[in-house]
């Protein structure tokens, strides 16, 4: 085998995958980027040869889109915070259990990940509806029926349910690397359990919490089915607005612009966060 054919081998091996990703990922993304600059005529649709910045100007100046983006980002931020506050302790509690409970309950927490998000949204719409189980419980403690369905509450609750596994997984993984001896040493040196948790456990699972937050925030900000089914017609998030632009308003260039702004915002958040985290931990690890 000559040197040049040997150098080509990995490209032959990944050729089919590369072909698929070029044709169905790189080309369509480029086409969409071009489309977002095309002039849109309500009578005839997008005009291929004419370009404008109008759609981006629209997205950045129209208060309607400001409202949508702001709502999407605060809901995603709050969902991320709740996932940290629930997912990290849950992973810790699970990691301190004994088998078989430990593996069974871990699967119970993680397995809903594999069930379609439409099914889970439907489940929450039943639980949170005016006659649902949650309102039934609230009535028992004397709080009148609370309107949750088609409000931010339903969207946030269901998003936490969908995202929680994405927080538990990285925290669990970093907990597995934790040396129980260090924890025991702290306790035997008379650190209180709380101090041990704060000074020993927390710093070591911090990378897991941070990478979990990143995934949760990104997925929540671009979530479609949950706000679509539980937010109703008025409570729009970025993804549902893009869907409307495409399939109801038929203004593809504007929809493409909104989608690409979302993609860019997501990538910026992820990359800057990544850099921040990496910088901190490189320093901490020397």
């Amino acid at each position, binding site marked *: 085998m000559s040197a040049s054919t040997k*150098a080509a081998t*990995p*490209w032959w091996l990944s*050729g*089919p*995958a*590369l072909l*698929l*990703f070029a*044709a169905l*990922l790189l080309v*369509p*993304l480029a*086409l*969409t980027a071009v*489309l977002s600059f095309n002039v849109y005529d309500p009578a005839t649709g997008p005009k291929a040869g004419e370009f404008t910045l109008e759609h981006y100007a629209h997205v950045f100046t129209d208060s309607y889109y400001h409202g949508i983006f702001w709502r999407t980002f605060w809901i995603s931020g709050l969902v991320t915070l709740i996932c940290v506050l629930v997912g990290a*302790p*849950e992973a810790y*509690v699970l990691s*301190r*259990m004994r088998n078989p409970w430990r593996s069974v*309950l*871990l*699967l119970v*927490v993680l*397995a*809903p990940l*594999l*069930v*379609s*998000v*439409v*099914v*889970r949204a*439907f*489940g929450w*719409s*039943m*639980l949170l509806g005016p006659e649902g*189980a949650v309102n039934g419980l609230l009535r028992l403690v004397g709080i009148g029926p609370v309107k949750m369905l088609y409000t931010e509450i339903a969207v946030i609750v269901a998003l936490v*349910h969908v995202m*929680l*596994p994405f927080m538990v997984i990285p925290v669990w993984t970093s907990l*597995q690397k934790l040396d129980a001896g260090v*924890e025991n040493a702290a306790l035997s040196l008379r650190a209180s359990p709380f101090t041990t948790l704060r000074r020993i456990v927390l710093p070591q699972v911090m990378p897991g919490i941070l990478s979990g937050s990143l995934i949760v925030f990104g*997925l929540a900000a*671009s*979530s*479609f*089915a949950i706000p*679509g*089914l539980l937010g109703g017609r008025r409570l729009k998030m970025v*993804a549902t607005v893009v*869907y409307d632009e*495409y*399939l109801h308003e038929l203004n593809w260039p504007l929809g*493409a612009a909104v989608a690409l702004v*979302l*993609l860019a915002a*997501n990538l910026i958040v992820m990359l800057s966060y990544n850099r921040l985290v990496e910088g901190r931990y490189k320093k901490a690890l020397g």
Partner: protein
Amino acid sequence: MTKNGPLALAFNALVITFMLAPLVVVCIVAFTPENTLTIPTTHFSLRWFEAAFAHPDFMQSFWNSLWLALASATIATLIAVPAGMAITRYAFPGRDFLNGLFLSPLIIPHLVLGVALLRLFALVGGTGSFGWLVMAHALIVTPYTLRLVVAALVGFDRSAEQAALSLGASQVTMFRRITLPMILPGVTGGWLLAFINSFDEVTMSIFVTSPSTVTLPVRMYMYATESIDPLMAAVSALMVAVTAIAMVVLDRVYGLDRVLVGRR
């Protein structure tokens, strides 16, 4: 190891309840004999399952989703195995780029992929074509197969391969008789994970399906935005059942905990 206190166990019980509640309620309501979404207390009935199986749109979508998931998972596996070998066994310029590219559908929102593919399909006349839809699904499930194939290849002892080659086996024979059997759990695990993810996908599919290729999750999404009745619960329960079967098989061939949280 220290034990969990009562407070920690109560917290754990609450989280578990929270995670299971929507799935349990869906599966119970599916058995209601009533016309409304009520939890059956005295009587259980299969009437809504019968209604689901008699519903031509849902049945068509079910078969669409099933064939789509089978075909796209198979294509994803066929391209991920050689790509995984290229990434794990060769050092070449562009390796990190390829690895990042092949995993990128995990990071790029499915909404953006849906929008982008809709544009492509409109230009090439692929709207409504099942073949293009299969390719689109193969794209989004390839990262799942690739990850498990790479994981299998990384912990691979190559001495058996070298022995086969030194005994005169061809590259093809070596791959078929030595390499493939050794990475088979990763390959089948990846195929199943790809199957589940294709079967459940809704956000991208809603942009690129047409009335004849609507998948089951998309059909359910559209149905639920218009009306909510126990038929939806029955279809949801069936969906949970299909996913659960695939999960049990996945657990047998690869180990569910390994798929979900990586190596133990």
